[in-house]
C-alpha cells in the first residue's frame, strides 16, 4: 500500500467521522440527512480507495464491495439510529453481510454459525428485550448522545491507526490461498479417528471447510472447546440467577446488615 493510499484512507476516515458525528442523535435541529450524505460518501470513497490502491484486480470480487457497503452502512445505522429496535434490525443486516464477507474468505462454516448464532439467537433475544423494555415513545436518552465529538474522534483515530498498520500486511496472494486449499495441509492435520473411518459416509465431504474446521477444533483445540462449554454453562447459570424473580426470605438478608458485619453476626447462608 503506497503512502498516498494511506493518506487517502486517513482523509476518508475524517470524512466518515464527520458523517457519523452529524448522524448521532441529538436534541435540537436534526442534521441526520447531511450526516448520512457525508457518511455514504465516505463509504464509497473508502471502497474506491480500496479498489484503486489496495485490491489486486486479479483477485478482486464484486461481492466484496457489495457486502462491505452493506456492513459499513448498516453498522453506521446501528450506532446512530434513535430507535433501539431499528438498531437491532440493522444489526441483523450487518451480521448477514459479515457472514457473506466470511464466505468470500472461505470460512463457510463460520459464516453459517455466525448467522445461526447471531441472527438466529442473540439478536432475536436483543429484539425481545428491547420490545419488552421499551414499548412506547422515545425517551430522552435515546434522542441524545454523550460527547459525540470525543467518541467519534477516539473511534476514528483508532480506525486510522489500525488501517495504517494494515497497509504493511503482505498481500494475500496465491501462495496463501493455495496453502489453504491444498490437500497436503489437510493431510498433515488429519490424524484423527474421524478420518480413519472406512465409512462411506465420509465420501464427498472430505474436502469441505466444515470437516477441516472440525478436525482443527476437535484435535488441536479440544481443550478450548471444553473451556467454551464450561463458559456457556456458567453464563447459563448466571443468566438464570440474574433474571430470577427474588423470593422473599425470612430472617435478615445480607443487604440489610451494615458493611463489615457480614459473616460476624449473620450466617453466610
Amino acid at each position, binding site marked *: 500500500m503506497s503512502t498516498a493510499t494511506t493518506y487517502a484512507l486517513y482523509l476518508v476516515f475524517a470524512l466518515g467521522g464527520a458523517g457519523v458525528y452529524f448522524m448521532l442523535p441529538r436534541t435540537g435541529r436534526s442534521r441526520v440527512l447531511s450526516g448520512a450524505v457525508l457518511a455514504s460518501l465516505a463509504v464509497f470513497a473508502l471502497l474506491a480507495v480500496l479498489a484503486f490502491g489496495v485490491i489486486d484486480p486479479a483477485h478482486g470480487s464484486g461481492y466484496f464491495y457489495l457486502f462491505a457497503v452493506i456492513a459499513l452502512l448498516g*453498522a453506521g445505522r446501528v450506532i446512530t439510529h434513535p430507535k433501539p429496535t431499528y438498531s437491532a434490525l440493522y444489526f441483523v443486516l450487518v451480521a448477514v453481510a459479515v457472514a457473506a464477507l466470511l464466505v468470500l474468505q472461505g470460512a463457510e*462454516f463460520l459464516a453459517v454459525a455466525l448467522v445461526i448464532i447471531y441472527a438466529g439467537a442473540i439478536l432475536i433475544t436483543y429484539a425481545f428485550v428491547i420490545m419488552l*423494555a421499551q414499548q412506547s415513545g422515545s425517551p430522552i436518552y435515546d434522542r441524545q448522545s454523550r460527547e459525540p465529538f470525543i467518541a467519534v474522534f477516539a473511534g476514528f483515530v483508532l480506525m486510522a491507526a489500525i488501517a495504517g498498520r494494515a497497509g504493511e500486511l503482505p498481500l494475500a496472494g496465491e501462495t496463501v490461498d493455495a496453502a489453504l486449499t491444498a490437500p497436503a495441509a489437510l493431510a498433515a492435520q488429519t490424524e484423527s479417528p474421524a478420518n480413519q473411518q472406512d465409512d462411506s459416509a465420509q465420501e464427498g465431504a472430505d474436502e469441505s471447510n466444515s470437516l477441516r474446521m472440525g478436525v482443527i477444533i476437535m484435535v488441536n483445540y479440544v481443550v478450548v472447546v471444553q473451556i467454551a462449554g464450561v*463458559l456457556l454453562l456458567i453464563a447459563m447459570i448466571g443468566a438464570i440467577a440474574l433474571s430470577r424473580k427474588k423470593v422473599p426470605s425470612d430472617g435478615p438478608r445480607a443487604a440489610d446488615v451494615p458493611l463489615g458485619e457480614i459473616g460476624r453476626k449473620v450466617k453466610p447462608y
Partner: protein
Amino acid sequence: MAGVTEYVIVGAALFALGLVGFLSRRNLIVMFLSTEIMFQGVLVNVVAVGRLHGGLEGQAFGLFLLVIAAVEAGLALGLIVLLFRRRGTLDADAWSAMRG
C-alpha cells in the same frame, strides 16, 4: 480468493464504529449492540489475518469468539433485564451511583 488488507480495513472500520456507538450512546441495550458490532469487526479481522498464516486457526478462533459473544450477550441481557426491573429505565446514567 481475495486479499487480506481490504478485509482488515473493513474490520477495523466496523470495530471503530462499534466503539463510537459504545462511547456515545446512552441506552444500555444500544451500548451492548455496539460491542457486538465490535465483535463483528474482530471476527472479520481474525479470519482475514488467519488466512495469512495458511491455516484454519483464524477461523477456529473466530468460532470461539462467537462462543464468547454468546456468553456475553446472555449475561448482558440478564443484567439489563435486572437493571431495568430495578430502575425502570435503560439509561446508563441511572447507574452511576458507584462513583467514588
